[in-house]
């Protein structure tokens, strides 16, 4: 039983290292602190921005250098992955808003004013993928399908 758990942990660790190395283009076991969000998320986690900040506080150096070291990243990330749970987007949305679409104005308002607001760049990016330019609406079910498909 313990051997199995060990192997799972070893696998997780290897996966973490792999993801880290994709962003480590200097090949010196460090990444730019601004890439940590991408790495964590590509490993299957769904942190809020606030949670990400907490994570960073744990892995940054005493005096932040702008770089994160692999050796600090691994243990923290390993813990996160073993405990993670992903929010269930699909079911949530299915239970809400009945008409199946949002207007561009509505989406922009929500995304840039509520929750952990989007930057302008993020908003534009989302619109470029999700917005139907002829009708100016977002059929969010389609967009969600797109997002979830990536999760497979």
């Amino acid at each position, binding site marked *: 039983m313990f051997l199995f758990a060990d192997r799972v942990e070893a696998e997780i660790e290897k996966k973490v290292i792999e993801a880290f190395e994709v962003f480590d283009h200097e*090949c010196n076991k460090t990444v730019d602190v601004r890439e940590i969000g991408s790495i964590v998320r*590509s490993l299957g986690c769904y942190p809020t921005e606030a949670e990400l900040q907490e994570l960073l506080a744990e892995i940054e150096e005493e005096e932040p250098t702008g770089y994160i070291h692999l050796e600090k990243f691994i243990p923290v990330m390993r813990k996160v992955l073993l405990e993670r749970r992903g929010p269930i987007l699909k079911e949530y949305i299915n239970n*809400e808003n009945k008409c199946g679409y949002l207007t561009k104005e509505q989406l922009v308002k929500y995304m840039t004013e*509520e929750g952990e607001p989007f930057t302008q760049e993020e908003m534009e*990016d989302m619109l470029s993928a999700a917005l139907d330019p002829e009708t100016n609406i977002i059929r969010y079910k389609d967009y969600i399908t797109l997002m979830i498909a990536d999760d497979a």
Partner: protein
Amino acid sequence: MGCKTSVPDSAVKKSERVLKAAVLIQRWYRVTMARIEMRRRYSLNIFQSIEYADEQAQLQLSSFFAFMLDHFSRLDADSRFFESPSVSQVTDSSLSLTELEKRIEVPDSYYGPRLKFPLTPADASALLDAFKNEELLHARYVLQLLHETRRVLKEMPNITHLSTSYSKEITVCGDLHGKLDDLLLIFYKNGLPSEKNPYVFNGDFVDRGDNSVEILIILFAFLLIYPNDLHLNRGNHEDYVMNVRYGFTREVLRKYKVHGKIILCLLEDVFSWLPLATVVDSKVLILHGGISDTTDLDFLNLIERNKLRSLMRPPKSVTDIKDQIKEKVPSTTPNKYSAHQNISGKRRDISSSRSSPRRESTSYAIAEEYQRLVKDGMSSGLLSATSVSDPDWSTEPTQKEWQQTLDILWSDPRSQRGCVPNKGRGGGCYFGPDITAKLFERYNLKMLIRSHECKQDGYEVGHGGKVITIFSASNYYEAGSNRGAYIKLNPDLSPRFIQYQVSKNTCRQNLQERVSTVEWSALKALREKIYAHKTELTEAFINKDRTGTGKLSVSDWAEVMESVLCLELPWRTLRPQLAWSSPDGCIEYMTCFHNLKIGKPVEEQVQPALVETVCRFRKDLEMIFNFIDKDHSGLISLDEFHQTWRLFCVHMGIQIDNETIDKLANSIDYNKDGNIDFNEFLEAFHVVHRLDKKADE
């Protein structure tokens, strides 16, 4: 919010729900974007790894290519092309411009640019316009241009010294690799070269892209018009052996059917006369690849650079040749290199299999192969004894000259300290910040600008700001893969970077679509590699599979993939795209090969390992067959095919018997007339994936 008026409960609940929903969507969105970023990065990783592994293979095959080139690339003495100058005349530069004019006629029907020497800016504009309209410059003008370029280059030292006096900004461009659109974009954004607008082009003008010829013509034209303001450094692709493999030779022969070979001969000379480096204000060193711990700029400044026709051909060592001359037969030292290879010819780093110092070991192994090959070629009857040339000592570079130049044209910077052999490319080295620092101290330098590596943003700064990589071919691997950039160097020597990306799509793809295109392309290349190593991979999988269930742990699977393919990639992240996993988390390894097959079915009797070998070396074989096909008919005889194939296998250490070769040859002589259409043959070995929308290339 926060004002304590009587807000109804339902309103509070609603805004809470909105908040939750917003956060949820944002979390998901950010995850999606992160995944896209991950896919973009590993796609570039894949391209880069495969590219460098390929280059390494080229260096190791170099002696074979050299051998083939020596015996097949020269025009016969009785050339069928009476009106063209002979090879020796062209290479001895005994032919003047007027002679070329007399010998080669330009028909009245030719509407392209007619160049008059000495060239003027009007000529350059005419050329640019013509090339924008996809016109071709007539061969006579090409030859005249090359002739003049060689004359001008010969006057130049190995290392050009520039200054930014008179407040001139110098523009430095990196690899262009035949991408004309990028060059035109640079000229559009930055202006044409002139006395007020000096340029340095840092090598790799040719290969891979479709317009290497046009780029060279433009660069050489500006060189002739502004010899003090347009500077060229030699790159590792300004090398006729590389050109044969990476597309430039093919492009020339395709565009210039009659005069192509002459043009190539002259180009070989011109390339060897390109300067090796440029220094600005005695502080900024600009060269194509990098440096090593032994780089000696003073030495490099004094060598006869034109002796280095190709860096893929290490100089014949003194002892080898003396033995050869003495015994009239190549030495029969057993080749340790081939003994290390297994049946599918897996490449190894030569230098790691010996204890001798890195430099000597690489060229020693290559020289051994070369000799063995000559012996085999002679005994097989493909070569006559007289065709083995005695080296002319005045034209052979020394070991040190070769090594020093190889280092500056092939090396790559790394973050780790020290200087180690460049295993990825098989030549040159990886140099660390300490090596850079030492060189700077020795020569009182401030900055090193180099190219040679594709960078996502077109440029990259390393070694604490001291080493800059500049790469000017956007969309190098695939549409959307990377930007290009150039540097503006002003008199205080701080660099400014200008980035760009050529975009052919009229409808703008969104980020997801762009990344998907690049990713698809990268995975296609990777799957091709996987297919081409099927036998070896299967063997290794089965070895690891103790239980015989056809499944392996993710860890074991990744280990096999990495060790057989010799590619450092994020295998676990790529796994979903490459193989199926069973519910228990293990990987059904044979699914790696699902949906992959070659374009045309080959008969059953031909062994799979052979099929894979052809897949793997498809491009190399194309080149070799092109050599043998002297009259460009696209056909070679069964006999020629057999002998060449045998020579190739012997060299690569692939065990093959004559019967198998015969079977293969017969299976591709589709109309049974004793001749093989080798292009058709090679096309058949193109790896296709079931889901490919179109038969590619």
